[in-house]
């Protein structure tokens, strides 16, 4: 008798047999899309050096990823786009005028040391882009703190300048030494200090992708809408920075939020899945810790900017936070 069914043709798998179509690649693509506005803003303000830095970082990260996987005899994972995200994030956290070979070194560090050595995507304890940035800041302190002026090509006589944060750092010092000038009122009067509007659109010196708060906010809204990130970390991070600066004095609170790496840190770096807590409660603690550490470093630390170090420190604490905030199973007492 001829068999009626075609047994061997049916696909067998365990349940569920339906899928939400979320995937690592799709999530990474969403992050890339969300970073486009700030990438564009960075190129707008800093010109071709920004383009070269971004291209160098992204391509180096992809090549390093492919080479690492080949050397480890594992599947090629450049298709998951995580290396593109790392490269792009690293570039956006570098000054536009950085020598390109340094960008190459930083990118190799990000993928090889900070990611693949630990076992690749999902296993890295620290955000690879931030780890590389910290590494570069320590190794190449000079170039890493030399900032191009926005539209530097219009003023060829002086293309580099100090960031607003460096200026604000002096206000903290001024306040600590009971200077006669109330720093909060300095605002527009101070030479070269950008107005709030300039800070919001990003017309100020800084890393390529950190300057435009509006572009970053657009990206963050996109990620929230796509449900890639939840509100917890960015909102608590920014709120903590804001509240701290209100209490501590020094620069105006809005300036603290809008300058430096706080916006890109809160929206794109601290929300990195791999290195941030998975539970809502954990995310609140994480966001608060990032904001607090960032402000403590800004006020008391040796560097004018503390955002990347704050996030890296919280990355290290993340497994602990995860342990503390494990959900209690439904029905368990």
């Amino acid at each position: 008798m001829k068999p009626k069914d075609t047994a061997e043709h049916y696909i067998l798998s365990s349940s569920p047999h339906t899928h939400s179509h979320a995937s690592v690649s799709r999530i990474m693509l969403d992050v890339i899309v969300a970073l486009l506005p700030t990438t564009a803003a960075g190129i707008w303000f800093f010109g071709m050096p920004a383009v070269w830095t971004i291209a160098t970082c992204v391509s180096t990260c992809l090549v390093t990823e492919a080479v690492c996987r080949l050397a480890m005899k594992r599947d090629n994972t450049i298709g998951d786009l995580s290396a593109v995200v790392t490269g792009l994030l690293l570039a956006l956290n570098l000054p536009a005028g950085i020598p390109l070979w340094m960008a190459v070194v930083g990118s190799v560090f990000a993928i090889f040391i900070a990611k693949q050595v630990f076992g690749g995507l999902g296993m890295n304890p620290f955000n690879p882009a931030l780890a590389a940035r910290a590494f570069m800041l320590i190794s190449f302190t000079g170039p890493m703190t030399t900032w191009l002026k926005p539209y530097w090509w219009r003023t060829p006589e002086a293309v580099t300048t100090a960031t607003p944060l460096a200026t604000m750092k002096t206000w903290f010092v001024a306040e600590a030494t009971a200077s006669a000038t109330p720093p909060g009122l300095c605002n527009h009067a101070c030479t070269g200090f950008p107005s709030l509007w300039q800070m919001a659109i990003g017309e100020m010196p800084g890393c390529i992708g950190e300057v435009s708060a509006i572009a970053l906010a657009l990206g963050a809204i996109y990620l929230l809408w796509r449900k890639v990130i939840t509100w917890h970390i960015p909102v608590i991070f920014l709120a903590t920075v804001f509240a701290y600066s209100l209490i501590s004095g020094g620069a105006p609170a809005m300036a603290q939020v809008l300058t430096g790496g706080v916006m890109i840190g809160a929206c794109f770096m601290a929300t990195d899945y791999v290195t941030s807590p998975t539970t809502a409660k954990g995310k609140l603690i994480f966001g608060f810790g990032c904001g607090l550490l960032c402000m403590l470093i800004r006020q008391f630390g040796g560097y004018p900017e503390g955002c990347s170090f704050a996030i890296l420190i919280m990355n290290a604490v993340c497994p602990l936070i995860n342990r503390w905030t494990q959900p209690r199973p439904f029905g368990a007492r």
Partner: protein
Amino acid sequence: MKTVKSAFKFKGGVHPDYNKELARDKAIERMPVPAELVISMSQHLGAPAKCIVKPGDYVVRGQLIGEKNGFISVPVYASASGLGQLIGEKNGFISVPVYASASGLVKAVEPRLGAAGGKAPAVILDTTAAPNSVNDGQSISESGESGEKREITLKPLDWKTATKEELLKRVEEAGICGMGGAGFPTSVKLNPPPQKRCEYLILNGAECEPYLTADCRLMIERADRIRVGVEIMRKVLGGPAVRIAIEANKPEAIAAMEKAFADIEGNVEIVVLPVLYPQGSEKHQIYATVGRIVPEPPALPCVVENVGTVAAIADAVEKGKILLSRVTTVSGDAVVEPKNIEAPLGTKYADLVAFCGGAKEPPAKVLSGGTMMGFAVSTLEIGTTKTTSGLLLLSKKRVVQYTSQACINCGRCLRACPMLLNPAEISKAVEANDIKSAEPRKPRRPRPRRSEECPLNEQPTANN
């Protein structure tokens, strides 16, 4: 009787593609007896029934072919029941009898593949054979409802005058087990230990599995049977409050039940549940309807019963009908005409598909049950059982095949998990062969004690 909205929302849950519109408006059709039936001895939770017929025997529809059998040596908690009876120890035997769902000649008694993948003894029945002997012992009615000449039925009971014991015995004799999917022996569920009083009888009409519409049609078309079943169960359980749980995406079913229960006395409410998978999960349904969380091990004064089972109880008591058929949704985008079919138990999947006009294209995947908890099967030669709620034929474009990527801790599984577990961490621990990490460390912060078989675990992302 009143209709209320669910006041309690459990955490987690997902919204899969429901695709219920395929079969939602198809009235239940009774399928003629196919030429061959494959009647499994394992249609319920517990030990398979013991087959008492042999090849060459002629059996009459409704004749006992599988005796209640089996001994469970380890104490098994009734996870299917909120009351938390200790089965096994108390009853010793937990099994459900199996009856011939059509008259015919026993061709073979052999192990056959079941939907879940394991083999169990099954009776292969040739229903086209002529009777070669006449069985006696039980009353044989000359006009079976299925159009057959001979059918064994039980004596109809008047539930108003029958005792609790008579009713329980009837439920047991009629071979009724939970028809929602678990197949828990209903007579055991309805007979909690004497010191435990049942406060709530919850009717599970959530039907949260995608594609399935059998329960929905049953509530629309046989609301009166369900009402009788509720009254019988209420009597057996000592008058608990009744909650009828229906997901909000079944307005017709809600209306039909409202009509049927309009004049019922006592504490009866229809609870409209928001559409969210898994509203039909017993623990989550108890929480959604009465706001109580089932502890571990389960012990709550609630009995949850599927609406199909309740209708079967009404038929068994009032009409003396043995459970010989059930409504199965045959659906999926590869079926010519999706239908809700009442077919004799043991109808082969191939015959169900043929009754729906066949397949539009060769299905890529065949599921017994819904897309969330159903089983992918390798053949259409499997017979339906008391728990076959659906048969889905999915085309290639409906089947997602993927290679899992690395877990990136996105947390989607945590947000989706209705049991409030941390699937990512469990998965990583298991992959690292570190079972201990997947278990609780301290009572203060318990980790999963038993990971329920969970479809959501793999649902949200490539992280599985």
